[in-house]
């Protein structure tokens, strides 16, 4: 099953399928290790619901829901 990263709920895991988005943001995502094939765990949401905190490639990354919407995920059961 695939869905966008911004639709994930806390504790859900998945593998990145594709990364879309505008040049600068996409490049930044790549540089931070958000590339297809990487495993992602949605660790938590900020107290106001946004941004999100992920565990990816062994470290913690935060991004907004709008940026997470660029990432298509394959959900891991």
């Amino acid at each position: 099953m695939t869905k966008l990263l911004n639709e994930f709920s806390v504790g859900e895991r998945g593998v990145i399928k594709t990364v879309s988005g505008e040049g600068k943001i996409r490049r930044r995502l790549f540089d931070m290790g958000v590339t297809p094939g990487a495993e992602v765990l949605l660790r938590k949401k900020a107290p106001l619901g946004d941004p999100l905190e992920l565990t990816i490639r062994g470290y913690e990354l935060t991004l907004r829901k709008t940026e997470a919407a660029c990432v298509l995920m394959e959900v891991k059961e």
Partner: protein
Amino acid sequence: MKKFALAGNPNCGKTTLFNLLTGSTAYVGNWPGVTVDKREGTYKRGEEPVKIVDLPGIYSLSPYTPEEVISRNFILDEKPDCVINIVDATNLERNLYLTTQLMEIDVPVIIALNMMDAVEKAGDRIDAKELEKKIGLPVVQISALKNTGIKELMDRAIKISDEPREGKTVLHDSPLAHLVRDVSIALKGAKVEAPLFHAVKLAEMDEIEVKMHPELVSMVDAFKATFKDDTFGSDLEAVVADARYKYISANYSTAYERRKRGEVLTKSDKADKILTHKIWGIPIFLVILFAIFHLTFSEDLFFIGAMSGGRLPTLFGAVEEGGLGLEENAWTTLLACFYDGAVFSPGVMITNLWTWCLDWVGELLGLATANAPLWVGSFVGDGIWGGLSAVLGFLPQILVLFLFFSILEDSGYMARVAFILDRIFRRFGLSGRAFMPMIMGFGCSLPAMINTRTLADDNERTATIRVIPMFSCGAKLPILTAIAGGIVQYFGVGNADLITYGMYLVGIVTAIVCVILMRSTTMRGEVPPFIMELPAYHLPLFKGLMIHLWDKTKHFVKKAFTIIFASTIVIWFLSSFSWNWKFLLQDAQELFESDPVLYASLEGVEGLVNMHMENSILGSIGMLIQPLFTPLGFGSQLGKAGWVFAVAALTGLVAKENVIATFGTLAASVAGAYIATDEGIAEAVAMISATGITIPALISFIAFNMVTIPCFAACATAKSELPKGKFSWTLLFWLVTSYIVGTVIYLVGSWWWTVFIVLAVIAAAVLGLVLWNRKHPVALSAEESEEALLEEAAVAEEEK
């Protein structure tokens, strides 16, 4: 001398290693054209001294942030003899991503595997030899924190710096290998240095490369037209990033031996669970913030004095009034730096001690110039020292405030603050990181403006720096308390505390409105992205903090002795001389001596000078600009005496507490009496009764001083922190904003029905803005339009 560059991700321990290598030889400068710190120093413990340049912390060599461009240009143009790539061993995978880019440049690279102690503590093992073999670069295990492996690192770095190295790429297995090879051969033919690096970046269609080698773009385009990957299509940038990470995971997994374990929560995870808790996260943050301000500025630590109900004795008060009745001498004055009816906060204690020292220097200066001509004494005492000590007096509290914020920054909590608050700030077109500089503005604008360096986006930085002065700083508080107190005492209405809080609120609201306005007019554009690492929490290093503070002190003192110094002398000159070059103090002295009995009632010479302040150049400038303030309520309607408000606002440029001090001296001139009280309320009352100013005009005067051009120290900082060419606009922005805010307050306060006019004007302005913005949508940024063009070209070619 050989030159080594330190490169690595943020939070990888780079600064700690730099401090370790360079010790006291380090100094901080600026990279040309941008406000990014450039740290340099010398390593002296080897066979030969080596110059060390600390490159900014980066994740990649992309062309999007100033830090990345600086690092890239430094390595390519200045050709360091060796690049020391610091790699956080606890986070090997992402850190090696930068390594795979660095190794493409024709420069010797050595990997410093930092934080090995943390890896071993977790029970994991990294085989450095194995990693060295796989990556093809020398790898040395170090711990910058525990000072191990440093000698070996530097010895090997010095050794390899003599052997030129040709760039290598990890893309040799990827489908792009042919393209990269062909382009790099073409570049080599054109005698370009580091051809491989440029070739890979060209394949990524990197902005800078495309501009530098437009002739080779067609090669990439031709390849793109024929290339189709299963996952990425013709997206070469993604292919490259993917290839790098694939290479890393393939090679580091054999070198990294992870101890088998379940999901164990580290200390950092546990701390994070509480600090960013869904419900408690924000309250905890507010408490931390309050504690910082309390420890820096409070004159009643932990409210001990208030809780005792005033039973704690004051030092010098009479015994029957609950004092100790101590005599004032050196020891009791020293004691009074720490306690007087209540225990002071550490920030206030240090400030008191510091002020004591400054006063002592001032007295010495007075003694030294006692026999000199009158104007020399005044020049040295009032002009030079008066201005300098007013500015230097802030230093302790600025440093204490900065220390607390550095602790938050170094411990990793600051990134979480941005995480918690981003949601709120996005509404105003800023990111969560803008919060800290703004809140620091309540203490002092200087550290606040310097702290905007943590903001990635230029527009965001400019907008933040511009509104920082509106968060009323500590020096503006005396204006508030004195005038609010004056209003309550003279008119017998309202509550001084309520007026004070209300004015703070006016400042905050003005700031928010200004940010929204800027983001929808001159600084339109996307909300800056928020993609950020949340580093693991750790205890900040004492040495690192001290180096941090020392840098700030140097920065501040340098400013105090240049721009601020010059401007205080100008103000002194303008206020002590009349247009016919007469020194006013001299005049007063002569007048006093002519009839000492008659003038004795005016507190002697000083009172006389102040009575004749209107003769000074500053006084006449005040009278000249007085009509300008008519819409704000303290202009021509106040009649002849109204110029004092204009002059007070002018002297506020040196330091904001001068506004009330000026009231004190000028009260003699307009009210005929020399008054000086601690709180400045009596001065304010004298002013009010002498000029007949109204309440709305007084409120407007406070608001004007709060929002307008800040003190010279803050202006100087703003000038150096703002992007080029933005400073004069910023000055104008401050003036116009404060003028409008003052006018609105005065109009609405004096004639309540004008509120409808104001609302109508605002509505019309908002409507105009919305319509205009709809007609002129945000233009595509250069890079986007370029991309669109390229895509069109590709489509056209395909059709052929």
